[in-house]
């Protein structure tokens, strides 16, 4: 169970994580992209952070919808609409709810990924954020379905996402800006997969610290 208060805390920590990794993400994007991923993600999540205060007592759906709209209107590039759509789809699942159940969380994760796919037309193996998110989601779903808590499941999921990031190093990009590099993209890790991993890792860290 994740309360709206905890959700706010999670989002705040994601924003901090992105900020801490701004240069790192931009560096990754400079190698196979256009050097803006860290700057743009930080711009968006920094704005998210500033909007959290007045959302304190709102329902989880409203909170996430606001996050989504902020990302869509502040990030730009490829990641803005993709992360924006992901949060928007997740928000619909928990419309009007003040708590997120285990079951909700699977649905949210699933809908987010579906949103990214329908918006960006990519699939696993294209060397995008999906290569971190899809394996993470599969582990997450299995783990919850086995009866694990959100804390445990998300901790397993972020590890899978990390492996997904590692996997992106081995493949050729066929979607997004890195695809222009062809074979020269091999050997380099995908910035979007990395930011996805960092987001999951941040959620996991927040949840697991709280429960300790």
């Amino acid at each position, binding site marked *: 169970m994740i309360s709206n208060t905890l959700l706010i805390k999670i989002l705040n920590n994601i924003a901090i994580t992105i900020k801490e990794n701004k240069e790192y993400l931009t560096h990754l994007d400079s190698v196979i992209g*256009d050097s803006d991923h860290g700057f743009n993600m930080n711009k968006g999540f920094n704005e998210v952070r500033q909007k959290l205060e007045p959302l304190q007592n709102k329902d989880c759906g409203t909170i996430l919808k606001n996050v989504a709209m902020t990302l869509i209107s502040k990030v*730009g590039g*490829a990641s803005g*609409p993709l992360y924006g759509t992901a949060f928007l789809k997740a928000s619909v699942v928990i419309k009007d709810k003040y708590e997120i159940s285990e079951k909700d969380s699977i649905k949210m994760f699933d809908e987010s990924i579906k949103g990214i796919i329908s918006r960006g037309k990519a699939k696993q193996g294209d060397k995008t954020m999906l290569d971190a998110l899809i394996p993470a989601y599969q582990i997450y779903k299995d783990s919850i379905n086995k009866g694990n808590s959100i804390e445990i499941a998300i901790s397993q999921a972020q590890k899978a996402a990390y492996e997904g990031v590692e996997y992106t190093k081995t493949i050729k990009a066929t979607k997004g800006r890195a695809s222009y590099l*062809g074979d020269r993209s091999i050997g380099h890790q995908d910035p979007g997969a990395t930011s996805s991993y960092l987001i999951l890792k941040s959620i996991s860290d927040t949840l697991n610290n709280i429960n300790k």
Partner: protein
Amino acid sequence: MKKIINNPENVVNEMLEGIVKAHPKYVRRIEGTDVLVRKTSPIKGKVALVSGGGSGHEPSHAGFVGKGMLNAAVSGEVFTSPTPDQVFEAIKAVDGGKGVLLIIKNYTGDIMNFEMAEEMAELEDIKVKHVVVNDDVAVEDSTYTSGRRGIAGTILVHKIAGAAAEEGMSLEDVQRIAQKVIKNVRSMGMSLSSCIVPAAGKSSFELEEDEMEVGLGIHGEPGTHREKIKKADEITKELLDKILEDIEIKKEDEVAILVNGLGATPLMELYIMNRHLHKLLNDKNIKIYNTIVGNFMTSLEMAGASITILKLDDELKQLLDSIADTPAFKNI
């Protein structure tokens, strides 16, 4: 990082202010946005053209707002597609009742953001259509890539579709014309140095003193491959050959050519390329109807150039010839 800027986070905003101050007879800014529209907008009874993309390609796109070309330009952060709400503001500001054509360059981000804006506009019953420019032959256009990128050829889409709109054509016709240009335009670029994204603070890639990067885009991304630097005539031939592999241009066909600088290349070098490009096309008996040389689609302070070839027919020729009056492109 050596740049004449204040704060990397403010470059786009300060640039837009500087543009409006420089060209008050042409453009004004929609307050609270990064959208520049023609001084008098909307124009009733005329299809409106909206283009845009990341900043760092100046004079693209704001420099082409004016009579015979664009109605609005939307500027994102450096090399970052603008967000849907900004594009939507542009659409609302320029729609004169006859509909709006979005000219999008083929980048994942641009397409997603512009399409989201189109969805928003449709909800408000504004007629919107779009075209996607993908002239860069460096990238193979297949289902295994994101397809060819949009680069300098975009300027010719602005010019010709802009002329069509100015003539009072319907949204469908303006879109058809823009698509005809896109179908017939190809570009290929190379560079001698990288550029520095202000917020990143360092070069996007490094090149040795004797190397050039071939087939690169306009966002500081590396190209398709690296070579030893060659003579201007050889470079020109290499770029042209790659273009002609991709599009069939026959003897006696007429073309417009654009030798475009990426930002730090002296005009002298562009003219030297132009000289040989003329020779190569003449040798093939391809007729050059129109030549444009200059910095139109740049990549910050990147040194390098691209060549664009547009195959013409009578309709395109007439529209290319018509008057344009914008800060960065004038045809009298």
